[in-house]
Structures are given as structure tokens and as C-alpha cells.
């Protein structure tokens, strides 16, 4: 069951970033993607917190994979994830209080982020620790990239800034809608469409050359 074929650690790592990007290809983890991408700082904090939880959960799940009972596995995954989410939540409250206030309920909600449970189920519960860890790093990078790609245009248009630093000229009008929930849906929709469009034209080019 463990190391018989399947993608190697390197493949897992690469796949998580672009080819199987959690947001753009798998449409997982939509809640933080829509809710905390109003500015880059919040988005990157969320990506970091999710990365920590995903890495720890994947490693621990992989370590205890021999003990898992099939009918209880989801429960065990959730408890493992909840443990690390609590740790992250406490750390944020202790050292980044403002950010923790801004993220509000979305940090505890990492527990129900499907992306993490899916990695535990698909990869960590069946693979060695090294593969599970590299998978977690790849997927986390993909998630961080996706959050940044949504947060950057929203903050740029809505606030004229990146990471809180004003980069656009003063005269530029602020597109308030981009900071509000409709802005999240519009940006995600357009970017998803764009990603699919690029993917299709790449596939077509590949088919044409073969």
C-alpha cells in the first residue's frame, strides 16, 4: 500500500503548484479564497497558516497511517487538523493580534478547509512521510500563489496599494466594489476563466505538435 508506484515526492511537489492547483484546478478551499483576499497581507497570513496546518497534518497523518481504521479516518483527520489549527490560532492571537482580529472566524474555519482533508485522504494516509511532506509543501505553495493572484488585483484596484504600500498614483479612483464580497466573486470568476482559457490553448498547442 505504501510505496508501490504512484507519483514520487518530486512529482507530488510539482503537481501541487500549477497542474493540480487547489484553487484553480480543484476548486477546493473556496471559503478563505473568497473571504480573506481583500488585501495581500491578510491573504498571505492565511496562506502561511494554512501551509503550517497542512504540513503538520500531512506529516502526522502519514506517521499514523498504519493505525487508521477506514470508518474512523475522516474523524481522525479532522481531529489532527483541529489540533494544529488551534495552535495557529493561538500563535496569531499572541503575536499578530491585529491580523488575528482581521481574519476573525476564518482561522478556526481552516479546520473545514476541504483542501487539507483531501490531501490527508488522497496522499498522506497512503504515502510515506517524505512524500506526504513534499506534497504538503507543493500544495501550500499553489494555494499561496492562488490567494496572491486574487488578492493582488483586488488590493491594487480597491485600495491602490500592495501589502499596504500605496503604489498607484493618488488621482486613481478607488474601486470600492473590489474590496467588498462582489469583488471577490468577480475576480475569482474572471481569473478562473482566464486559467481555463490558457490551459485549453496550451492543450491545443500540445495536440497540434504531437
Amino acid at each position, binding site marked *: 500500500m505504501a510505496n508501490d508506484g504512484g507519483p514520487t515526492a518530486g512529482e507530488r511537489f510539482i503537481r501541487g503548484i500549477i497542474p493540480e492547483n487547489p484553487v484553480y484546478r480543484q476548486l477546493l478551499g473556496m471559503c478563505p479564497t473568497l473571504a480573506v483576499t481583500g488585501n495581500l497581507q491578510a491573504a498571505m497570513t492565511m496562506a502561511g497558516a494554512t501551509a503550517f496546518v497542512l504540513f503538520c497534518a500531512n506529516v502526522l497523518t502519514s506517521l499514523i497511517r498504519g493505525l487508521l481504521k477506514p470508518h474512523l479516518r475522516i474523524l481522525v483527520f479532522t481531529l489532527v487538523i483541529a489540533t494544529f489549527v488551534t495552535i495557529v490560532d493561538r500563535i496569531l492571537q499572541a503575536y499578530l493580534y491585529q491580523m488575528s482580529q482581521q481574519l476573525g472566524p476564518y482561522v478556526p474555519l481552516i479546520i473545514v478547509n476541504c483542501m487539507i482533508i483531501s490531501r490527508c485522504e488522497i496522499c498522506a494516509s497512503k504515502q510515506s512521510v517524505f512524500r506526504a511532506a513534499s506534497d504538503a509543501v507543493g500544495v501550500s505553495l499553489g494555494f499561496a500563489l492562488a490567494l496572491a493572484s486574487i488578492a493582488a488585483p483586488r488590493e491594487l484596484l480597491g485600495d491602490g496599494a500592495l501589502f499596504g504600500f500605496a503604489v498607484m498614483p493618488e488621482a486613481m*479612483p478607488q*474601486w*470600492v*466594489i*473590489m474590496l*467588498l464580497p*462582489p469583488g471577490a466573486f*468577480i475576480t475569482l470568476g*474572471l481569473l478562473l*476563466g482566464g486559467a481555463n482559457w490558457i490551459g485549453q490553448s496550451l492543450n491545443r498547442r500540445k495536440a497540434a505538435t504531437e
Partner: protein
Amino acid sequence: MAEAEAKKTESQSRPALEVAPGPHVHHGALTTRRMMLDVIIALAPVLLVSVAVFRLYALKQIVLCVACCVAAEAVFDLMRHRRPKIDNLSAVVTGLILALSLPGTAPWYVAVVGSAAGIGLGKVVFGGLGHNIFNPAMVGRAFVMICFASAMGATAYQDETSAVHAVTQATPLTQLEQTGETTELWRLFVGNTNGSLGETSALACLLGGLYLLIRRSAAWQIPAGVLLATGALAVVQNAMNPGADWTAAHHLLGGALLFGAFYIATDPVSSPLTPMGRFIFGLGIGALVMLLRVFGGYPEGVMFAVLLMNSVTPLINRWTIPRPVGGPVERKT
């Protein structure tokens, strides 16, 4: 099993019938282009009044919106590898209606962003003309209204230093909400008040609307429903506040009600298909307009009313499927 076999052979022995989706009857002259041309002709009195009242403010907004809508249509069509369908004039109509629903004082980027959002998010992402759920002009207006609240809010309409007389006053509905003052009926009828460019003159909207109805480019059930619901609710509201200066007639002539009823709500793509459905659609818009005017935070509610009713159009279509000739078809279960 034997029964199924028999059915199978029966269906195979039937004559081949060509089945194609409607419409089956074509009329050479009834084209999208002709309908859009009718709307443009019907908009002529409104355009004239708006230019007469708002001068260069109106001209600037109209030219900008039409140019941007046509350009957006061309660009987005080319992105989808389609021939740009500018010649059916639908982008021009969207631009005109968007321009006439904006305040004259709105800066240039409001028109540009509104046009691009209206055509792009309102129409092209759904698959182009005929597939859009919402009225493109109203999507564009809602986008800029939330986006640039300071340039589109009730106070943005007024510019006391302007050389154009109408722009120096508050709009009639804002005046009513803030100070309780009413505007004379005659001025609401003729249109020399402040407001969105196309909404001020009830007379121009009625003239153009009548032309649309006579040409049957717009369904009469929609404006009838809107006016009936608004009028009825306005009478009820007046009965509850006897002695109020803002009467039911003010409600009917003021604000964007007539402009919305005749030009915005009658968009054939985003309104229901059946006559009964159209009437229900109109009633819904009229009722929502009155609710938003009386209880809402914004002074006027035509835009949100139209967008809300657009979203239930498929539901209305399903409710009001007409009965086929010869009675309903019995479904064997």
C-alpha cells in the same frame, strides 16, 4: 419486456419528423437590428431633453458611454474569436441607456468602467446577446454605483457651482428624502429638474414609450404592470399619510420610474417570454420600486428593482407556461 419491444418497433416504423427548436416562423424585417433601431428612435425625445436640460454634461456622458460600449463589444467579441456584432446596434442601445441612467456630473472613468462592466460582466461572460440574465446597462450602473459610491450617490448629482441651472439643485427625490420639499408636478412632467440624464422628463419618456409600444418593439404588459403596481402602492401610501405633498402622481412622474418602465424593464432578453409572465414581471418591478423608495436607503430603486426581477425571470417563465390549444397534456406517471 415484450411491451417494450413492441414500442421500440413502433417508434422505428414512424415517419421521420424533423424536430428543431423554435422560432419556426420568420419575418424578414423583424431583426435584432430593427428592434434596436426602434429603441434608438424611441430614445430620441429623451436624448433631446437631456441635452437641452444638462447641455454638455449630457453630451459628454452619451458620447463616452456609446463609444466605450461599442469598443468593449468589439474587443470582447474578438477575444472570443467571433466577428464583432456591432452592426446589430445592441451595444449602442446599452451605451445610450447606461449614459441616460448616470448623473451628468459623474467623472469620465465612471462611464468607461460602467460600459466595460456592463458589456463584459453583464453580457459577454454569459455568452453574448440573448444569453444574459441581467440587463447589461443596469449591471454596469450597479457596478459603478457600488464601486464609486462618492461619484454616484445622491449628493453627487448636485454641483452648486455649475453653470447649468438644473445641476445646481438637488434631485427631486433627494430633496424629498432630506428636506421633505416636493417638486411641482409640471416640472417633473416637462423635465427641467436635476436627476439622472434620461429620467427627468416624464413627457419625453411617455412619447418614446408610446412609439415603442406602437411598433411592438416593447411588450405593453411590462410598463402596464410597473405603472399599475407603483400607482396602487402609491395610493395606499398616500391614504396612510393623508396631507402629504408628494402624491401618487408625483411617484409616477418623478424619479426614473417611467424611463425604467419603458426602456429598461422592456429589454426582451432579460424579461419573461409569456404575456402573463411579463405582466407579473412588471408588477414585481413596480412593487419593489415603491418598497425601495419608501423604506430603502437610496432615494430611488428602479435599478435594483429591475435587477432583482431579472433574477427571477426564469422562475416566472416556468410558472406561466401557456396552455396548449386543446387543453393541458396529461402526463402518464
